[in-house]
């Protein structure tokens, strides 16, 4: 494992906070959108787009790019914020989120906005799409990786398990699922609504390689992504038994970063009042300052 320079980690951490601020502003401005699931996925998506994935924002259709499918489409605010920051489109457009005529639709739409790989929103579908794309890459010996971000409530959908079975059948070692396990869904806690546990054992029994991390700890996220190998079609093929799809079970906090939003299912889709908005902004800005002061945030978790 290569050691990440503390500087690079610090930049990624700050970026994740900044992306939270951008998505908070978008949601407040639109009076609509999902804060909780955007905030829980901030480190995961920031690290994917700014650190791990092979992308060319100036050429969004570049054939050799890695594919990122954001299956939990309701975290569109933070996805849009990240795409803009990464240079796919102008940051000014973020203000149009959920407005009539905007390219920044309530849930992402393929072909509408550069960087959006697939329409998503109806839960579970991205899992299946990513299996198809990973198959297509293997068939054509394209060494791109396929990443798919799934919500925890999302894997209650049956299609996810259909996809999980097929990924193992075809030994898709170029496929990585990332589970944003924040513990809450619209109606309440996951454990009350439809428990997922024992979640690691479930995926292992489906033939997947399972890594469990703290998904709001940037260092852990980066290390988990570092451990994903890019397929090498020039060297002799691996033994079939050694080829497995991977899932990163990322334990996260819903609404992470704003004290009164954390771990509260009401903030799944609630819009903050002016006062709540300002308090949230203050807290998030303090977090960025904290990074400047060298307080690494991973120690604050749990």
């Amino acid at each position: 494992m290569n050691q990440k320079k503390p500087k690079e980690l610090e930049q990624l951490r700050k970026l994740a906070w900044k992306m939270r601020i951008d998505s908070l502003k978008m949601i407040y401005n639109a009076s609509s959108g999902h804060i909780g699931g955007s905030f829980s996925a901030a480190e995961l998506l920031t690290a994917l787009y700014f650190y791990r994935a092979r992308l060319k924002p100036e050429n969004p259709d570049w054939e050799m790019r890695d594919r990122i499918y954001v299956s939990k489409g309701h975290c569109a605010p933070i996805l849009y914020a990240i795409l803009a920051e990464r240079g796919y489109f102008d940051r000014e457009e973020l203000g149009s989120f959920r407005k009539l005529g905007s390219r920044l639709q309530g849930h992402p739409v393929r072909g509408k906005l550069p960087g959006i790989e697939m329409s998503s929103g109806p839960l579970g579908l991205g899992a299946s799409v990513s299996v198809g794309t990973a198959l297509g890459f293997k068939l054509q010996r394209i060494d791109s990786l396929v990443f798919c971000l799934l919500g925890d409530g999302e894997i209650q959908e049956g299609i996810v398990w259909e996809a999980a079975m097929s990924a193992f059948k075809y030994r898709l070692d170029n496929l990585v699922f990332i589970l944003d396990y924040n513990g809450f869904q619209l109606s309440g806690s996951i454990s009350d609504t439809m428990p997922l546990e024992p979640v690691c054992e479930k995926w292992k029994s489906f033939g997947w390689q399972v890594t469990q991390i703290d998904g709001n700890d940037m260092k852990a996220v980066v290390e988990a992504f570092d451990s994903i190998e890019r397929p090498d079609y020039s060297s002799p093929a691996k033994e079939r038994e050694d080829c497995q799809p991977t899932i990163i079970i990322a334990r996260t906090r819903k609404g992470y970063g704003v004290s009164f939003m954390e771990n509260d299912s009401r903030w799944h889709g609630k819009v903050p009042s002016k006062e709540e908005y300002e308090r949230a902004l203050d807290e998030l800005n303090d977090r960025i300052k904290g990074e400047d002061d060298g307080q690494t945030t991973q120690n604050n978790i749990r």
Partner: protein
Amino acid sequence: MAKQLRITYGEALAELGESDRRIVVVDADMAEGTRTIDFKKRFPRRFFDVGIAEQNLVGVGAGLSLTGLISFVNTFAWLLTLRAGDPVRTLVAYANTNVKLAAGYGGFSGPMDGASHESITDIAVMRAMPGLVVLSMGDHWEVKMALQAVTRYVGPVYLRLSRAAVDNFHSTGTNFEIGRGIILREGPDILFITTGPITGRVIEASGKLARKGIDVEIIEIHTIKPLDKALILREAKRIGRVITVEEHSVIGGLGSAVCELLSETSPLPVRRMGINDTFGETGPYEELLDLYGLSVDDLVKAATDMLEKED
């Protein structure tokens, strides 16, 4: 015994796989039934079986298409349109992916399994999906021509197939173009508008009617959407009487599409013949069609009734 339409589909798909290496085929444990087995044998690396999982079938097909491949996604029509309805809507129609949904066993064509396995609502569901081209195949020539056309066409397509044993009713010199209806027979008295293998019965009925001195026109519509509005309007206005015939519910299918069109610009009497808002049952294919109101005699009677009503 005439050849089953699905056999031609299987052969033509495998041939197409030879000439176009971008073609991949996905099936859900139905390769023997859908006849993708021919493609599977010739191109095992480009064939994927997801097992009995129709939602994943469509998702995998869409995902494959996003790597530049042309996905042919195969299972029975009712499973594809109903069990996998949301993946079809979101990942194929809405996402506008280059996926070809090949729907086997359209209408009553898998009848021994009973109404649960018959598909009489698929056109209604698919026709309502924005952006989807909806094709309905009637004979062997059409299946071969349509496969080439949908491969050239970039975008989502629903291709309704059939297990029925049929003879060709198109002559080989005919022009096949997505969105263009085909006039099979010209005549001034009544306009039959039809789709699918049932067209063979309409042709038979036209012969019987001719012997009674009634000269009908037949337009076969292989593209339910986009509908050939110009042709239908022109011929319907000229002839003034229309009977639609389809192996589908009278709700939402070809008959509905024709009525929607005519009622907006040139309202005139239309008789819709199809499955009359009821489920089918187990039975031999041809006998089932007879029982559910689609016998040749039923077609003849519909035409003579329409003319008598005017007298």
